[in-house]
């Protein structure tokens, strides 16, 4: 990893939504980095802000949402001049976002393939559309490339499938089409927002493999969004644990899985279903996430945290570096040198030991 090339740099991103019930501070100071060819995952409970963060990256926030502050820097090497360029997506106009970023540089695979394809347009047309639109390709060129793409994503009988309508395809097939659409303009970043949650378990693994495969072939950078920690372990290089609009722990997969430091990450890992434990006794994190329409004092997780310190209720913890690592960071007062020595629950410790053994 000598000279990794940074493609996306998010710093201190704050996003709020105006609603009938007031202003909701959905994203509160998110930092993220994505490097060329690498995969990061964002995990967290429902409503933690995973989708909003990535929507901001594509510039497709809902109309009531605004980026209050922060930068989303996107960097690339110009295809013609080779010059290194950087833009702040947060500052781009709608027109520039639409023409330059969406589809061309950053593409998205949506969660539910049953509803994310236009029901009255043939598969072929839907895949061909962006390349004709953005690159002015002729019909023949686009057709040829679409055939290649459909084969790449593992659709057999591609020529026949191009004339099909979405309802004639199974869920797994449709998700392959959605992936083909995402790849149609040769983007550099692929955002997968829960790409397999809506699919059968048997198909999930295949789609994940496919995305990994394509990532290698095309040297893509991928952002995975999921609440399935099992998925993350298989595909990502880095994990970002998100809670109430903040990243509370980040690091390499092994660091976060084998040496989790934030009590919220402990909770998530404990709540992860696995084959050996009894599902009836599955752990759930007590309580609910805070209502972000109100100001959050201190650590947003404190009210649900059995290990919370006094200071957690008053002062928001900064990002602490985990000693001995340059990548592992945790936003918890427990990381402070003066904090009491709190260990993760015994059950989780045993679980991790087991995971480690299986992983070897």
């Amino acid at each position, binding site marked *: 990893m000598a000279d990794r090339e940074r493609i996306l740099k998010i710093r201190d991103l704050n996003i709020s939504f105006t609603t009938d019930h007031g202003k909701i501070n959905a994203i509160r100071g998110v930092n993220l980095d994505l490097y060329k060819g690498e995969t990061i995952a964002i995990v967290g409970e429902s409503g933690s802000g995973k989708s909003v963060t990535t929507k901001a990256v594509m510039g497709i926030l809902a109309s009531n949402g605004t980026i209050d502050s922060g930068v989303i820097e996107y960097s690339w090497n110009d295809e013609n001049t080779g010059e290194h360029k950087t833009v702040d997506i947060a500052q781009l106009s709608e027109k520039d976002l639409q023409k330059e970023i*969406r589809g*061309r540089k950053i593409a998205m695979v949506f969660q539910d393939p049953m509803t994310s394809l236009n029901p009255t347009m043939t598969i072929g047309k839907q895949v061909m559309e962006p390349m004709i639109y953005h690159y002015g390709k002729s019909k023949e060129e686009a057709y040829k490339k679409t055939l290649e793409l459909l084969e790449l994503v593992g659709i057999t009988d591609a020529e026949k499938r191009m004339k099909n309508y979405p309802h004639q395809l199974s869920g797994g097939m449709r998700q392959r089409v959605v992936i083909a659409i995402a790849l149609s303009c040769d983007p550099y970043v692929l955002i997968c927002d829960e790409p397999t949650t809506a699919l059968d378990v048997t198909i999930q693994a295949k789609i994940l493999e496919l995305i990994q495969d394509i990532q290698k072939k095309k040297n893509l950078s991928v952002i995975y969004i999921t609440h399935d920690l099992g998925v993350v372990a298989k595909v990502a290089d880095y994990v970002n644990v998100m809670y109430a609009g903040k990243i509370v722990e980040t690091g390499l997969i092994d660091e976060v899985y084998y040496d989790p430091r934030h009590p919220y990450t402990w909770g998530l890992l404990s709540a992860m279903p696995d084959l050996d434990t009894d599902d009836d006794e599955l752990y759930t994190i007590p309580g609910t996430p805070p209502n972000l329409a109100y100001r959050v004092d201190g650590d947003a997780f404190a009210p649900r945290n059995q290990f919370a310190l006094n200071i957690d209720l008053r002062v928001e913890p900064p990002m602490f570096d985990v000693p001995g690592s340059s990548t592992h960071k945790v936003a918890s007062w427990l990381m402070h040198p003066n904090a009491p020595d709190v260990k993760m629950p015994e059950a989780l410790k045993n679980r991790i030991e087991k995971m480690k053994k299986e992983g070897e």
Partner: protein
Amino acid sequence: MNKSTMKYIGKRLLISAITLVIIVAVLFLMLKLMPGTPFNDEKLTEAQKLAIYAKYGLDQPFFVQFFNYMKNMLTGDFGVSFGIVRNMQVSDLVGPRILISFGIGIAAVILGTVIGVLLGIYAALHKNTLADTLATIFSVLGVSVPSFVLGLLLLLLLGVTIPVFPILYESSHPLRSSVLPVIALSFGVIANVARFTRSEMISVLASDYIALAEAKGLDRTTIIRKHAFRNTLIPVITILGPILVNLMTGSMVLEQIFSIPGLGRLLVEGITVNDYNVVLAVSFLYSVLYVVMMLIIDISYGIIDPRIRLGKGD
């Protein structure tokens, strides 16, 4: 068109034909049960009346009368008028009026649908703005104000106060005379179509495939034109059936108001004087129109919507 589509259309045609036969039978029965006869002249003696009944076959048992009627109808013979223009062939009486009534009706449907769709889409794209609110108010008015009230208003305004259009239908100026009735009729169509289109468009715009189109980097106009428009319009076709029924009843009253020599007026006259054959023929015609329109709507829906066209789980 493939085989299964042909089969489907064939089946629908058969069902339509059966429906029409049943309609005629019910109409026939109802007319017989209605009080009075076409020949209520005080001066006629019982014997004379019986002679007239015999002449027109009205003395026969119900089923014989029905059978004869159906038989003649299939050859295009709808009998003669008993009252309105005694002994005139009903087909001659009805024929010239078809064009007038259907012309006005079809013009109102087309005008109403086009304006309604445009209005609905405009309102959806400007959701929760003043324009949207005005469009909604207009829709509510259009649905709740009967077309004859609007017809009277238009008459007063553009026929009397500012006499641009004729107050009564002038056969020498069929187009000019049709303007006000068409507007009056189309008002309700506009309102219904606009309201439906608006809500369809709003739900289409909130759908995942529109988000995907956005993520593809398409501009707003392209997204609406290529992805939202068609998916909005397909369901709109389904409400044209009920709208048509509204139009038929509305047109009967409007034809009275504007003195339009159309089918609706003929039907009302026929009912007042118990002119069986006229009432039957006109009602039958309305039924045919309705059944045929429903058939067209169904088939075109199947052709436009690929999910129906190809059959589910194909």
